[in-house]
């Protein structure tokens, strides 16, 4: 049983507290301990004074230690010190930045500099020393690994890791209790700097890694020429392998047993590079054959040219637990060729990613798009339901590229609803999208495919509406392509894309210079122009948060805004929205009156059970 403050301790425990005043303490206790000297009354020789001098120095040192001890005792009764070590350890764990936030600041280390107890607790909290950034100096990398005292460690080194021989030595030394290694960050797109050190590291990692669960090796400039003897073919708990432009991995089935995720990605610029030997399809298929637990498989441009039909003598690789398979070979036929060798469960999501040469003409692009569209529409048993066509002029930054997605189903978007038909998803990079012609071209190529549409990932501001003179994409282009379609009756939008329903309902967001976002009608449009889909009968909002304030991308907005938009839509179309689906929507600060008002302007409101909106 503990009590709540120092007063309670004093009352409950019987202790000799010593004299009540400093003067009494000095006279009764401390003063008696000091060496008594009187050089005038009894002069002595030099040896005596040297001896006394030394004794006084000792007294001073002892007093300093006494001061520290007294402070320790005072610390011991401070409220924070009465927390058990395991709680203090938990507090410290929250002071350590998350490993994957790539916050390499070491300021948090000061927790071990506060007092002796904090240092003791911190040094015994092995978990707070178990996340090691290679960006740190050599001393700290070694110190952290030592302080982890054999607990599982995660090692991360992104760009500028400064991978020196000493760091490499420390990593290799602690391999037996290393849980994960991430060398190089895919999104950094930067090299680790010291090519030889990376090479040395890979050579050094030849000992068994008994608890290693994940390894991620990324190179953006460094070519890994040879398979390295990693982990002496012994990493029995390896569950995830991520290799980005790293071709030096030894493709042996011994790593496959518990594998859950396998990513092998080669950048476009390395494709066909004969100095950078890719794994053969046979090697990878052999690994996959032993990866019965695999759930995620990503193979992008990782093989050389693939020829012919099914490889002779090869049995189909069965991956019964596969959830997602992304294939991005240099041609559609290559991707389809891989599919022939893998048995993918019907429930798995299969994505085919195609990179289109940036210099191709619109006609070529349109041909590809049209061809895909036709195949998906006409082939019921098409083995995939989503095709991503990535128009890339810079493979290093493909996340900023224009991306088209064609899918047969929007299951992935709204789990609670299954829709069929062909959907087009446009993900654009914002108002300065330089691919307006391509977008328009793609739209023309899908004249009859627009049973529904969703996800126009476009930031919306006043400028977005104005026609462009520089060929960039604007809302008017979108309207030209979609707004005039009379058969668009359903719009989906997810939390990252509130703008879609803004357009659908004829409203947009604008900041009037004061930084506050408002929903308004288009200010400069002639009265005859309508940003509205005349046959829109169903609107689905997915994961929108109804808040008091408006957030730029629209996934946080007040309910009254939705009400106003729906009401205006009704006035314009002279018919209400038949159904408003609110899927996984939440309203922590909502004014419920507006939800009731919404019921008056739409036919019905359907709520998914996983949101927190009250159906009543």
């Amino acid at each position, binding site marked *: *049983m*503990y*009590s*709540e*403050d120092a007063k309670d301790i004093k009352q409950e425990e019987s202790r000799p507290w010593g004299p009540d005043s400093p003067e009494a303490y000095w006279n009764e206790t401390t003063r008696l301990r000091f060496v008594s000297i009187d050089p005038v009354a009894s002069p002595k020789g030099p040896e005596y004074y040297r001896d006394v001098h030394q004794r006084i120095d000792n007294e001073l040192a002892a007093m*300093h*230690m006494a001061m*520290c*001890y007294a*402070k*320790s005792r*005072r*610390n011991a009764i*401070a*409220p*924070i*010190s*009465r*927390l*058990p070590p395991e*709680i203090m350890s*938990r*507090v*410290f*764990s*929250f*002071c350590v930045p*998350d490993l994957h936030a790539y916050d*390499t*600041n*070491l*300021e*948090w*280390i*000061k*927790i*071990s*500099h*506060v*007092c*002796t*107890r*904090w*240092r003791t607790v911190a*040094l015994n909290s092995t978990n707070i020393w178990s996340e090691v950034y290679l960006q*740190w*100096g050599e*001393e*700290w990398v070694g*110190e952290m690994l030592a302080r982890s005292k054999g607990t599982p460690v995660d090692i991360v080194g992104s760009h500028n890791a400064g991978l020196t021989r000493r760091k490499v030595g420390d990593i290799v030394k602690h391999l037996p209790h290393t849980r994960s290694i991430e060398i190089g960050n895919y999104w950094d797109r930067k090299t680790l700097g010291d090519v030889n050190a990376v090479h040395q590291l890979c050579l050094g990692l030849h000992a068994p890694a008994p608890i290693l669960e994940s390894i991620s090796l990324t190179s953006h400039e460094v070519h890994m020429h040879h398979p390295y003897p990693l982990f002496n073919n012994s990493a029995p708990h390896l569950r995830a392998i991520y290799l980005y432009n790293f071709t030096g991995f030894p493709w042996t089935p011994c790593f496959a047993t518990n594998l859950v995720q396998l990513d092998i990605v080669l950048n476009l610029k390395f494709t066909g590079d004969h100095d950078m030997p890719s794994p053969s399809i046979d090697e990878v298929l052999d690994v996959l054959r032993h990866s019965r637990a695999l759930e995620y498989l990503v193979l992008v441009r990782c093989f050389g040219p693939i020829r012919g039909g099914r490889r002779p003598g090869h049995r189909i690789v069965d991956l019964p637990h596969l959830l997602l398979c992304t294939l991005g070979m240099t041609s559609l036929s290559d991707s389809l060729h891989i599919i022939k060798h893998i048995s993918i469960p019907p429930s798995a999501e299969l994505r085919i990613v195609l990179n289109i040469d940036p210099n191709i003409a619109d006609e070529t692009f349109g041909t590809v798009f049209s061809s895909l569209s036709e195949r998906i529409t006409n082939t019921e048993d098409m083995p995939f339901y989503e095709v991503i066509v990535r128009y890339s002029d810079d493979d290093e930054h493909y996340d900023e590229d224009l991306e088209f997605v064609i899918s047969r189903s929007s299951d992935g978007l709204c789990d609670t609803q299954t829709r069929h038909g062909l959907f087009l998803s446009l993900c654009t990079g914002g108002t300065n999208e330089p691919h307006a012609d391509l977008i328009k071209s793609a739209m023309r190529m899908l004249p009859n495919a627009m049973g529904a549409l969703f996800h126009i990932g476009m930031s919306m501001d006043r400028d977005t509406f104005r026609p462009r003179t520089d060929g960039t994409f604007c809302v008017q282009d979108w309207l030209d392509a979609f707004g005039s379609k009379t058969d668009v009756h359903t719009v989906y939008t997810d939390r990252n894309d509130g703008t879609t329903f803004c357009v659908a309902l004829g409203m947009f967001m604008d900041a009037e210079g004061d930084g506050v976002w408002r929903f308004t009608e288009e200010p400069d449009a002639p009265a005859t122009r309508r940003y509205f889909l005349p046959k829109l009968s169903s609107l689905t909002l997915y994961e929108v948060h109804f808040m008091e304030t408006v957030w730029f991308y629209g996934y946080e907005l007040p309910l009254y805004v939705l009400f106003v938009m729906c009401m205006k839509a009704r006035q314009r179309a002279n018919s209400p929205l038949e159904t408003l689906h609110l899927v996984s929507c939440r309203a*922590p600060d909502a004014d419920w009156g507006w939800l009731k008002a919404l019921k008056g302007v739409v036919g019905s409101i359907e709520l998914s059970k996983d949101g927190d909106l009250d159906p009543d």
Partner: protein
Amino acid sequence: MPTIVSVDDSTVPGEGSSRLLLLVSSDNKHIVVEEDIMSRSRFISKQVEGFEATSQRHAILLPFSSFVLNKVIEYCSHYRGYYLLEDDPDAAPPGRSPVREWDQEFLDVDRNMLLRIIKAAHYLEIKSLVGSCARAIADMIRGKTTEEMREILGVENDFTPEEEHSPSSKCTG
């Protein structure tokens, strides 16, 4: 271990679906609370299991004040019926889960109160509350200098010169 005193059923109704518990704080305040609310506390759950084994119901004496106890009850009431991963004894040890907005407001109290709540939560074995309090304390000291940390949490530098200049404290990133 808390002191346990016997109570009769007229003091603590124990029948029906909403059984009640009698909690007694260190300042001798008697607080009746639904058992269901306090089920988040592993300590209370174990006590209740003990009651069921002996077919006797008791008041549970707790070593913290009614003020602190009421705060804990407020927390448990708020999350009544909620599944919180941290409180699942079968779940993996809690990591650094995202902060819950309500918890932030709930723990917007002075330092001493926060420390009392975390001790009470630890005693009652409410891991989610311990985690939230620990995060709140960490927030108080994050980004602060060593001296500021000492000042905020009322501790002094008690290192000897040798300890202060030990090799491990000289390491710099």
